[in-house]
Structure formats: structure tokens, C-alpha cells
């Protein structure tokens, strides 16, 4: 009897342990490309078009207009999912960007927190203006506004040293800045990171109001990098107490219009007296209240209107319950993927339709083609594949038009000011694929030995195709395989749980995969172009799945086999665009590079420019979408009293 019980204990524990081991393989890779947004849910309606004017995508205000006050309650599905414990330096979750950038962490320059291109444009926040850039494009100088303060318990003026300190934190290895690579362009940052210098030589604070950044190379999108929450001011007297990644998240001192509830109770007299702030329990809830030290005069209603008195974020493990509560007006909003039946209800019921918000997600979904692997080492095959692909069929698997626009090139249109909105190098009727054109293209390929437009070389048979073992990819597979077959390519499909780690391992030499999608970090196309920068190619954890620009030397290092010679590189183009300051010229440069990639490199078959959907409750009187973070524009929402 006793042995039997002992056995039972072991079995129970083993069950858990095996569960741990078996289920654990997925997330490491999964998180990497997906951190900034959730996958759009499947829907059935045209996405709202994003336009120049910020007001157009906002909800119609109620007759009396949105009123101040009230509580905005948001349920989060299953978990907050923070990647760095909500410490801005390591936090890489789009939803966290939304809260921090909108409510808690002001930055030198920031966003309007609104939908569309207007939401992707930079405006001054803590700084008086967009800064002064030296003629050589290497020095950026900013002046802080008067009257900007840290919230309780510090309640003191924010100085340029507090901004500079944020960069010291980014450069502190133990704090694990998740996007620290954006700041290595600052002079002296690398030395500081390596511990070779006590200060970052490129950051100077001549007085309490002025801060200047000196870069080692012209970097046109540097202002975007300054608008990331990690670059927001941090008070050394509190943040300096924490030397481990993510620990500061529960003590975050606000510089924005709201703060953790209970911040005023924090005893910041020394590091030893600090206790986690009551308003943030990473397990269950986060509660924000107004920051008494925030002065609206230092801000603009364009960026923040701050209607509500209080935000309540709670974790809820039951998605059905979340949307029931929204419908019943018990909560206002959710960070959750809407179940298909909910989307259907909100698209079909006219009374509910206004509560469904569809916005551009600034995220492209694509099939990646490996430039080193036959038959995709032949550009004609890649072009033919683009021509033949039934993109409409793929979108149907995603739930139809509400899922997003058909993508015809790499960078989402909203990030290119719609300059490529009408660009489609591989057009077809109804996006269903142009078989005739594809066959014409295939005839040019060495793999079509009899030049009949159908690939007949053995390289086209049983081509390994790695995809995720989930419902969506299962639905995507029939149109994918059927399209390839029309030009004679048969796929050997491998559905795995956790496809990312497989395709991120260069030595596996995966010819093609239907798994990837990519979202922006900020609204500059450079955040997409890292995917084609050969200098970022890694043996594992590689995101340049197509191996664009791979040289034979690199190939040996990262263990890539196949055709490794003569692979086109766009490194020089990327560098050329990168030096151009933010503005139309820069956008045009990226647009041209996008075209070049689509026509001369053809690393992808892009198929979906995904939307972000959101459902709000009847109590919400004003709602907006924050284009930067891809989530709720908390600083603009209002509720009925």
C-alpha cells in the first residue's frame, strides 16, 4: 500500500514535470517575432482604413461629448505576458508599450496615441520640440519642458540627468535591455556596456534642462528610438536599487499622467525600505490612478486627454467571460483575442458593430523562401511562386477580409504613408493567383527543363515546408500546397509545435515556411529591414530566414548549405536609407528598397497586412487606437458616468 502511494506521488509529479518539459519547447522562439502584437483574430468585415487625420478613426463622441472621470476596466486574457517584468528597460510587449507610453512613462519625444499614420508620427513630449539635429546628422539636442515631475513618492522635477540615467540602465547588462541594440549607435554606449567606461561619453547634460546625444553614425530614425519607453526618464534613487532584470517593474515611478495605485505609500528614503507598490500584482492585476504631480500644461490633448480617473487591468483566464463582461458593461475593454463567434456577433449585429474596432496592425504575414535552397535558389521560381499564390485563399483561412488587407509587398502601407498602396508586382485577379503568368515565369527557370511552365526537375519534388501545428496553419495548407502544385512544386509539409526555433536554426536549411509574421517596433521601416540585413544573420535565433545577403564565408560560419554564392545583398541600401532623417525622403527610400526586395531579391511571398481588432463595452464614450503600440489608446478613452 505504501509503495503504491509513493508511486502515485511520483506519477503525479512526473505528470507535471513531463508536462513542463513537453510543453516548454515553443515559447522561446515564438516570443521573438511576435512580441509587439497578438495575431489578429479572424473576422468578416473590411478593416477601417487608416487616414491622415487622427480624428477620423475615433469613435463618434456621444452628444454631450466624453466626460472626465470614471474607471476604465480592462481584462487581460490569461496573463499580462510582460517580457521584462514591466521595467521599461526590458519590456518589449506592445500592450505594455501602450500603458507605459500613454500613461506612465513620458519620453523626450512621443506619439499622439491615435490611429493611423498620425499615430505613427513623432511629436514632442517631455522635450520642448523635436530637437535639434546637427548638420552631420550625428548630434541630437533636446530641451526639457518646465514643470515636468516624477510622481509620488518622489514628486520632484525631472532633469536631463534622469533621462541620461535611463540610457545607463539600457547599457547595464544585468538589467537586460531587450532592445538595447537600438542605442549602441550612441557614442560610448558599447564601451559603457562592456564596462570599459563609467559614463556614456556620447550623452551629455550641460544643464538640468538640456540633453545631447552624439552618435557614431548618422541614424535617421534615432528620434523614434528616443520615443521608446526604455528611453523615458528613470529616477536613480529608486531605479538604481535594482540590478536584476525586470525587478524595477513593481516600483515604477511615473512620469506620466497616471501612476500605480499606492505609489504614494512607497518609502523611497532608502533602497532597504522599498516594498512593491500595491497597485501592481504581476499575477492578477494592475490599478492606475491619476498622478497628482502631472501637469497637463506640459502636455497636449493631442497626445493625452486623460479622461478617466482610474484604470483597472485584471487577468481573466476565461475569454468567454471577458467578452460577456464587456457586453454587459461590467468592463470596458480587453487585451484578448476575440473568439470567432464574438467577432461574428459584432459584425452581424448592427447595434454592436460600432463597438468593434478594426485598425491597421502594422504587421505583415508571409511565406519565407530560403535563397540558398533549391528550387528557391532560382529567382524565377520565387517570382513564379509569388505570382501563383492564392493569397485570397490564405486570407480566407484567417477568417476573411476583417483579418486584414492582402499584402503585396513587405512593409505595411501605414508605415510608408501609403506610398506603395497600389503597388503589386505580382498581380492577379482577386488575389487568387495568376497561373498563366506564373508558368511564363517558371519557363525561365533552370528547374523547368522542358520549358512548359511546370517545374519538372527533381528539386521541385517533396520540398520541405515547415509550418506551425495549429488550426490556422492547418487551414492555410490546402491553398498553399495547391498553389505551389500549379507550377509543379510539391511540398513535403512538416507541421511542428514551435516552428520558429526550427526555421531560426540556419543549419536546418529549411527551404520554405508558412509560419512567420513580423510587426514593427516603431513606425520606421528599418524595423522591418533588419530581416534582410546579412550582418544580423546568426546560426540560431536567426531572423533573416531567407538568408538575404549571405556570403560564402558567412554560410560556412552559420552552417548554411546549398547555393551560397551570388546571393543578392541589400546591406548597402539599408545603410543608405538609415542615414536619412525621419521624413518623406526616408519613407521613399524604404519604399524603393521594398520594391527592390520584391522584384530583385524576392525573399518572401507576403500575403497579409494584418489588422488589430478590439471590442469595447457600451459604457465607453470615446475610444481610440494607439498606432504606435498597436493597442488601446488609454490616454484618449472615456467612459459614461
Amino acid at each position: 500500500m505504501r509503495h503504491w502511494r509513493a508511486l502515485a506521488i511520483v506519477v503525479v509529479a512526473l505528470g507535471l514535470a513531463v508536462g513542463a518539459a513537453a510543453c516548454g519547447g515553443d515559447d522561446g522562439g515564438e516570443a521573438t517575432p511576435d512580441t509587439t502584437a497578438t495575431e489578429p483574430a479572424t473576422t468578416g468585415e473590411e478593416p477601417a482604413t487608416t487616414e491622415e487625420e487622427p480624428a477620423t478613426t475615433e469613435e463618434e463622441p456621444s452628444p454631450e461629448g466624453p466626460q472626465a472621470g470614471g474607471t476604465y476596466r480592462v481584462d487581460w486574457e490569461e496573463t499580462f505576458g510582460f517580457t521584462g517584468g514591466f521595467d521599461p528597460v526590458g519590456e518589449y510587449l506592445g500592450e505594455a508599450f501602450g500603458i507605459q507610453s500613454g500613461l506612465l512613462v513620458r519620453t523626450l519625444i512621443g506619439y499622439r496615441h491615435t490611429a493611423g499614420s498620425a499615430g505613427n508620427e513623432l511629436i514632442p513630449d517631455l522635450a520642448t520640440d523635436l530637437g535639434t539635429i546637427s548638420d552631420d546628422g550625428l548630434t541630437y539636442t533636446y530641451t526639457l519642458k518646465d514643470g515636468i515631475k516624477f510622481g509620488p513618492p518622489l514628486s520632484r522635477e525631472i532633469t536631463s540627468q534622469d533621462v541620461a540615467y535611463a540610457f545607463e540602465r539600457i547599457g547595464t547588462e544585468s538589467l537586460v535591455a531587450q532592445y538595447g541594440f537600438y542605442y549602441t549607435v550612441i557614442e560610448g554606449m558599447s564601451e559603457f556596456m562592456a564596462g570599459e567606461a563609467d559614463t556614456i561619453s556620447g550623452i551629455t547634460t550641460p544643464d538640468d534642462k538640456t540633453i545631447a546625444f552624439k552618435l557614431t553614425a548618422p541614424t535617421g530614425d534615432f528620434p523614434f528610438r528616443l520615443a521608446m519607453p526604455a528611453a523615458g526618464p528613470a529616477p536613480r534613487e529608486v531605479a538604481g536599487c535594482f540590478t536584476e532584470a525586470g525587478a524595477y517593474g513593481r516600483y515604477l515611478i511615473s512620469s506620466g499622467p497616471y501612476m500605480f495605485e499606492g505609489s504614494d505609500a512607497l518609502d523611497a528614503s532608502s533602497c532597504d525600505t522599498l516594498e512593491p507598490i500595491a497597485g501592481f500584482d504581476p499575477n492578477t492585476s494592475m490599478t492606475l490612478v491619476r498622478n497628482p504631480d502631472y501637469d497637463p500644461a506640459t502636455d497636449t490633448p493631442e497626445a493625452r486627454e486623460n479622461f478617466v480617473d482610474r484604470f483597472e487591468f485584471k487577468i481573466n483566464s476565461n475569454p468567454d467571460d471577458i467578452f460577456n463582461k464587456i457586453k454587459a458593461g461590467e468592463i470596458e475593454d480587453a487585451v484578448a483575442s476575440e473568439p470567432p463567434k464574438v467577432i461574428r456577433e459584432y459584425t452581424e449585429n448592427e447595434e454592436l458593430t460600432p463597438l468593434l474596432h478594426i485598425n491597421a496592425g502594422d504587421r505583415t504575414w508571409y511565406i519565407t523562401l530560403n535563397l540558398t535552397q533549391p528550387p528557391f535558389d532560382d529567382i524565377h521560381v520565387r517570382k513564379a511562386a509569388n505570382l501563383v499564390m492564392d493569397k485570397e485563399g490564405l486570407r480566407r483561412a484567417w477568417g476573411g477580409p476583417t483579418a486584414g488587407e492582402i499584402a503585396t509587398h513587405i512593409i505595411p502601407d501605414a508605415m510608408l504613408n501609403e506610398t506603395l498602396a497600389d503597388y503589386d508586382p505580382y498581380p492577379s485577379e482577386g488575389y487568387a493567383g495568376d497561373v498563366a503568368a506564373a508558368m511564363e515565369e517558371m519557363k525561365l527557370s533552370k528547374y523547368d527543363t522542358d520549358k512548359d511552365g511546370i517545374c519538372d526537375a527533381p528539386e521541385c519534388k517533396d520540398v520541405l515546408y515547415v509550418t506551425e501545428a495549429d488550426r490556422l496553419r492547418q487551414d492555410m495548407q490546402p491553398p498553399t500546397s495547391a498553389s505551389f502544385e500549379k507550377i509543379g512544386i510539391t511540398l513535403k509539409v512538416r507541421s511542428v509545435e514551435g516552428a520558429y526555433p526550427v526555421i531560426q536554426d540556419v543549419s536546418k536549411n529549411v527551404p520554405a515556411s508558412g509560419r512567420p509574421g513580423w510587426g514593427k517596433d516603431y513606425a520606421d521601416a528599418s524595423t522591418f529591414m533588419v530581416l534582410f540585413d546579412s550582418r544580423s544573420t546568426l546560426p540560431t535565433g536567426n531572423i533573416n530566414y531567407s538568408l538575404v545577403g549571405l556570403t560564402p564565408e558567412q554560410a560556412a560560419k552559420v552552417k548554411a548549405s546549398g547555393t551560397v554564392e551570388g546571393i543578392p545583398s541589400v546591406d548597402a541600401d539599408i545603410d543608405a536609407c538609415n542615414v536619412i532623417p525621419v521624413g518623406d525622403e526616408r519613407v521613399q527610400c524604404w519604399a524603393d528598397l521594398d520594391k527592390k526586395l520584391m522584384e530583385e531579391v524576392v525573399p518572401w511571398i507576403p500575403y497579409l497586412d494584418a489588422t488589430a481588432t478590439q471590442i469595447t463595452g457600451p459604457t465607453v464614450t470615446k475610444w481610440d487606437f494607439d498606432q504606435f503600440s498597436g493597442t488601446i489608446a488609454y490616454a484618449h478613452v472615456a467612459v459614461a458616468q
Partner: protein
Amino acid sequence: MAAYIVRRLVWVIVVLLAVTMITFAIFYLLPTGDPAVRFAGKSPTPQVLEEVRRQFGLDKPWYAQYWHFLSDLTTGDKYGWPGLGFSFDTRIPVREELLERAPRTLSLAFGAAIVWLTLGVTIGIVSALRRGTLLDRAAMGFALFGVSAPVFWLGLMALWLFAETGGGPDWLHFLPGTGYVPFSESPSEWFTHLIMPWVVLALLYAAFYARMTRGNLLETMGEDYIRTARAKGLTERRVVFKHGLRASLTPIVTMFGMDIALLVGGAVITETVFNIQGLGAWAVRATFNQDLPAVVAVVVVSAFAVAIMNLLVDIVYAWLDPRVRYQ
């Protein structure tokens, strides 16, 4: 008895050691992703990755980590005793998270246990005493329903019918929706929030217990000592409740101990549907996020619960059945 308990406690420790070691070994020996990657960001430099591994203690071989885990567990770490480290996911001390979640799961498990024990045993007794009648058939029909109805579906139906946010008839909506309110915050809210989860979770078990009680009682009532009790001229009530029930409850005690112990590891589905945020939901999330310290913590708690409940079962068993005691 004391020596026996000490012996058992030593055994508990041995089992805990084995179970945690196996958990560690499986976590490291089976090919999984690197938990550090998630924390290190989109395209981490090798240095950053190394730093995260160092902070997480993942830079050492698994047996060294295991040793570290053991010494922290026994002597405590900077977050207190027992030292369970911090969660790779939320970055807060596992001990704190455990203390936050354990009362939720315990409230759920023990409340449900009271409901199913009362319900199941009552139905089982009535059913056994009225064997073959309509009442018996109705009760066994209920039992079949309880066993076969998926908890997930039952939970959603209960919410639909009784929760304020439910879609069912309004006059039935007299219970609050999902979520958990700590007892210390409001005992009445704690109670009303837990009624539905208790009942839904209990239905499944009640059905098992009803069938088991009925079967055991029917068997016991055929025993010679029951005939003796009747021959003594005892009232039927006394015969059933004192003589019949006591003997038929002993196997139920064993089952009950095991069920409670396993529930302490988390009633995942019930916790999820009713958004209780207890240990079960945590365990699932931790396994998916490769949150080793959290996984190990739940394993320790579960194994401990199983061991302790076994001990309790043995003690209760000995109390119920003197034959065990004197062996």
C-alpha cells in the same frame, strides 16, 4: 503511532527529493527551448543572453542548479523561506506568488470537497437504502450525468444561468460572475464568488462518491455484523448510520485524500473557467512559458500535498479501523 508518523515524514522528504530531481532532470534533459531567450529580447547579443542565463541560474549544469535549489529550499533565499527563487515569467518571487495563489486553490478544493462529500455520500446512502426505486434510479442518473458532463461545459452553463453577466434568464442571475475575492477582504464575496466553482467542480466528484458510497454501503449491509446489529434490536437508522456507514466510508476516505491532494495541484479547468487564478492555471502557464521555478514550486506543493494527504488518510484510516492501528 508517533514513530510511524516520523517514518512517514522521512519518506515524504525522500519522495520530494526524487520528484524535484526528476523534474529538474526532465526539464534539462529533454530538448526544450531556452527559457532565457524570452527574457533576452528580439535579437539578443550573446552577452545579454549569457547575463540572463546567469541571473536565472541557467548557466550551471542541471545538478548544480538542483543543488542550489535544494539549499535555497531548505535554508531560504533572499525572498524568505522556503526559498523557491523567482519566476522567469513575472519576475516576482515564486514564494510570493505561491502564497497568493495557494489560498485560492485551497478555497476551491476544500469548499468543493465539502460539497461533493455531503452531496455524494447523501445521494449514495439514499440510493443504497432505496435500491431499485425511482429515487435510486434518479440518483444514479444524476451520477451518470455528473461523471460524463465536461467540467468546462458545466462551468460555462452555470455562468450563463446564474452569473450577473450570464445570457440566461435575468431572474436567475443572483450570483456574481467570475473571479476570486480573498476571504480577508470580504467573507461574503469570497463565498458568493466560490459557490459556482464549488458546485461545478463538486458535481463530478459527487457523482463518483455517490456511486462508490452506494456500492460500498450495499456491500456492507450484506455483512454478517449488520445482521448481528439488527438481531440486537437496533433501529434501522442506527444500523445504517453507525454500523453500515462506518465500514463503507473507509475506502471513501482513501479516495477522498487522493482527490484532495490532486486538487491542491490545481483544478485547472475550473480555475480557468471561473478565473480563480490558482495553482492549476499557474502550473499550466508556467509549463508553457518554461518557467522552471514556478513548475518546480507547483511540483513540490503537489507532491507535498499528496504525501501529507496520504499521511492524514492513514491516520484517519487507523482511527476508523482499529485493525489497521494494531498491526
